[in-house]
């Protein structure tokens, strides 16, 4: 595609995708396309892994091969799993020093504002480029308190026992086809451990970038919040705009121990050629709290249902999500809250906006195991449809096997009211400005939960999505 074509192609999308630039290919190693046992071995060898991990990868690979594609959800039949690079290694990895990061990569992250953000707002930063983490750092005082924030590979090397105790326990291989795939080929991601009673005030951040086309990124993140600890982890994702599809399939495992509190925020802004099929799950123990804050703006197809398995009495799970499906996009997002213990509660708030022929779906599950007492769960979904071509679905499942419960679900679908538009018009706003303002108000409950610089970013992204949305 010529540059001119590319530009007009982009313009059809109504908004320029700001992160659509790509770097020259500087990969130091690239596995062949497609996935074989040998590639799994190769990845493991590159990472100099212990044998148990290689065996786990191979076992996961076998399961992945056997497992059929999901029989539900959006159509992902165009995703050609044989036309994907499963491992692309950027050159020279020394994660400690920003100065040592190769210039091309550094420039990319500079454009994305990463090191600057680190200085100002964050307790720690990780950056992943294609298959590997290229940078990882954490504030000294936190390190002194025993907080671990490493690339997942270094987590495995430096804390083998802690790692082995928790890895693959929250999301087992058999969970689904893509979690099996991730376990077979995982590369990159973060390893976080917060010791007992330590509260990390500023968020830890990871930034994911796909540079190569036809690439699969399979980051794996493991977060362990020990008793009474507190942490907020933020991830952001972007990729260049290619005509060929890329594939992102991460697995996030979080363990929230007694009285701990974890918040995990995602701003997913992949370019619209990325399939984003992610498994995110937290195991929450006694009086622990897990909060997912999830914004899905980019990607071609997203399938993502962050979940909380509430194992301990008094555990609480929460999900706050916004999805924006622009032209050609499918956002199939939702949440699962599984109550395994008495006195547990959960809350899901989902907001979605569809524009053009974009389709956003809420797909969720609230399950209460048998023999439990005092369970509360509430789900609220609101969908906003901006034009006649856009579409929205809601598929909640509520499965209750105890009698002492109080479960509610409500959903509504609407468009922007003509009176609202009329009022704003009368105050001198154009239709587009007015619509953008109404949409910003609609997602406000999520935006105010984000760290400041993300909130600003989020508002700007929504504005970009909205350009060309009217008339």
């Amino acid at each position, binding site marked *: 595609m010529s540059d001119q074509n590319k530009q007009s192609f982009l313009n059809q999308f109504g908004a320029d995708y700001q992160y659509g630039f790509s770097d020259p290919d500087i990969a130091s190693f690239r596995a062949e396309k497609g996935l074989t046992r040998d590639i799994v071995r190769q990845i493991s060898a590159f990472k100099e892994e212990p044998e148990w991990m290689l065996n786990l990868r191979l076992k996961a690979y076998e399961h992945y091969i056997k497992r059929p594609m999901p029989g539900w959800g959006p159509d992902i039949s165009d995703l050609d799993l044989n036309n994907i690079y499963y491992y692309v290694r950027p050159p020279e990895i020394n994660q400690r020093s920003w100065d040592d990061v190769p210039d091309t990569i550094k420039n990319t992250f500079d454009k994305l504002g990463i090191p600057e953000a680190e200085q100002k707002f964050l307790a720690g930063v990780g950056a992943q480029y294609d298959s590997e983490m290229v940078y990882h750092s954490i504030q000294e005082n936190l390190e002194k308190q025993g907080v671990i924030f490493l690339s997942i590979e270094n987590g495995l090397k430096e804390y083998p026992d802690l790692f082995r105790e928790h890895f693959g326990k929250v999301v087992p291989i058999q969970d689904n086809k893509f979690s099996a795939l991730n376990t077979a080929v995982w590369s990159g991601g973060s390893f976080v451990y917060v010791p007992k009673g330590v509260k990390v005030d500023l968020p830890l951040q990871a930034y994911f970038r796909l540079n190569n086309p036809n690439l699969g990124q399979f980051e794996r993140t493991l977060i362990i919040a020990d008793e009474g600890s507190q942490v907020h982890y933020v991830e952001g994702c972007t990729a260049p705009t290619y005509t060929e599809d890329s594939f992102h399939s991460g697995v996030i495992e979080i363990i929230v121990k007694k009285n701990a509190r974890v918040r995990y925020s995602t701003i997913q802004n992949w370019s619209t050629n990325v399939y984003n099929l992610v498994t995110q799950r937290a195991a929450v123990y006694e009086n622990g709290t897990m909060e997912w804050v999830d914004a899905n703006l980019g990607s071609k197809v997203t399938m993502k249902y962050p979940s909380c398995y509430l194992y301990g009495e008094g555990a609480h799970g929460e999900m706050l999500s916004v999805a924006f499906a622009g032209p050609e996009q499918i956002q199939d997002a939702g949440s699962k809250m599984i109550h395994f213990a008495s006195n547990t509660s959960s809350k899901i708030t989902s907001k979605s906006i569809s524009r053009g022929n974009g389709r956003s779906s809420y797909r969720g599950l609230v399950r209460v195991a048998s023999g439990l007492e005092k369970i509360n769960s509430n789900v609220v979904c609101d969908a906003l449809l901006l034009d006649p071509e856009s579409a929205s*679905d809601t598929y909640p499942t509520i499965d209750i096997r105890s*009698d*002492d419960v109080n*479960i509610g679900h409500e959903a509504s679908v609407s468009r922007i009211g003509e009176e609202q538009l009329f009022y704003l018009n009368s105050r001198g706003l154009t239709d587009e400005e007015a619509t953008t303002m109404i949409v910003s108000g609609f997602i406000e409950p999520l935006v105010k939960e984000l760290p400041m610089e993300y909130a600003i970013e989020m508002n700007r992204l929504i504005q970009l999505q909205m350009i060309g949305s009217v008339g």
Partner: protein
Amino acid sequence: MKNIDNTKRTIMKNLHWPEHWQADVQRASAWETAQSMTFPERKNEDWKWINFEYLDLDTLNVEKPLITVLSRTNHGISVLRADSKENLLIKPDVDTYSALNAALSEELCTIHIPKNGQELDTIHVTVKFNARNTVANTRAIIQLEKHAQAKVILELQTDTYKDLQALLNFQLEIRLDEGARLELMEVQNLGEHVSYISREYAHVHRDAHLNWTYVGLGSRVAKSFITVDLLGKGAETLMNGVYFSGSGQVIDLDTQQNHLAAQAHSDLLYKGAAIGNGKAIWEGMIYVDHIAQQTDSYQSNRNLILDQRAEIKTIPGLEINANDVSCSHGATVGRLNDDELFYSQSRGIPVREAEKLILEGFFEDVLKKSGDEEMTNRLIEQIFEKYDRNHQ
């Protein structure tokens, strides 16, 4: 449905099929279709919660159900041989059951009200069968021409034989032409050994109105697919449902509100309860086509869970392809309110009576929408009786 399960096929072959039907081309072809399909399994999304695998079809004989029409004026109502397949909304090849129905149903009940006709009397139809190791297939068709009006009560009944098994495979087709109005109450009160599958389908045309009350109390395992297609401007349906599942029972209902034309209205309220180790499942969908602007559609499912061993599943759904719509749904699961029970006790009402009063209020709310007070009272009695039977 591509793979043919050989074990199931043999069973199907053994199902006694009356000799004299073998010359009937349509039946033979439906029979052929039935044999080429496997029975739906849990892998199939529609059947993920239940199936009839426990049924030993080998031992079942085909039985002709008894259709009785209790109505003073019988014009327009007839019990026919089910040979004519014209205008069937439900095609034989939907699944094994629709094929079996097309192949095996011998008699059907048709209610046909001509243009501008008004049936002032309630038309009361009962379908009864013996249900002793038998399979019964039958069909009811209700057609109201332009501006016709009718009230219909349809009851499905059998006695209970604890150690026997039986299958009732029922189809209901409703067609309401422009401006027609139908009030329909359907009561499934089969014996608790009977397996029940029904496929029910209504076409509602311009300005027509369908008030459809579904009551599910009986059977061992019941699966109903209840679909309304709204096909013209101003078409309207109220879908009211009451289902109560006791020990040993599974009641699984699928409802579908299809908005296929602009400016139609649908409003669904289904209320379910489960007691003992009963399971009650409801899965609903509002589908709005892209041409169906100015759709007004609601869906609400409320559940009471009356026992620690009981199970409730509720799966409301929206698929919206037009933007100028007002659609919402809600679902709740809860138990009897402690405060209410406490209050009743403080006024000297024993817990059991208080629970029944609350249950009555819960269900009456829906049943009253049918506009039939006598039936409402009778059903409340049956619900009480069932409550007593299941209460330890």
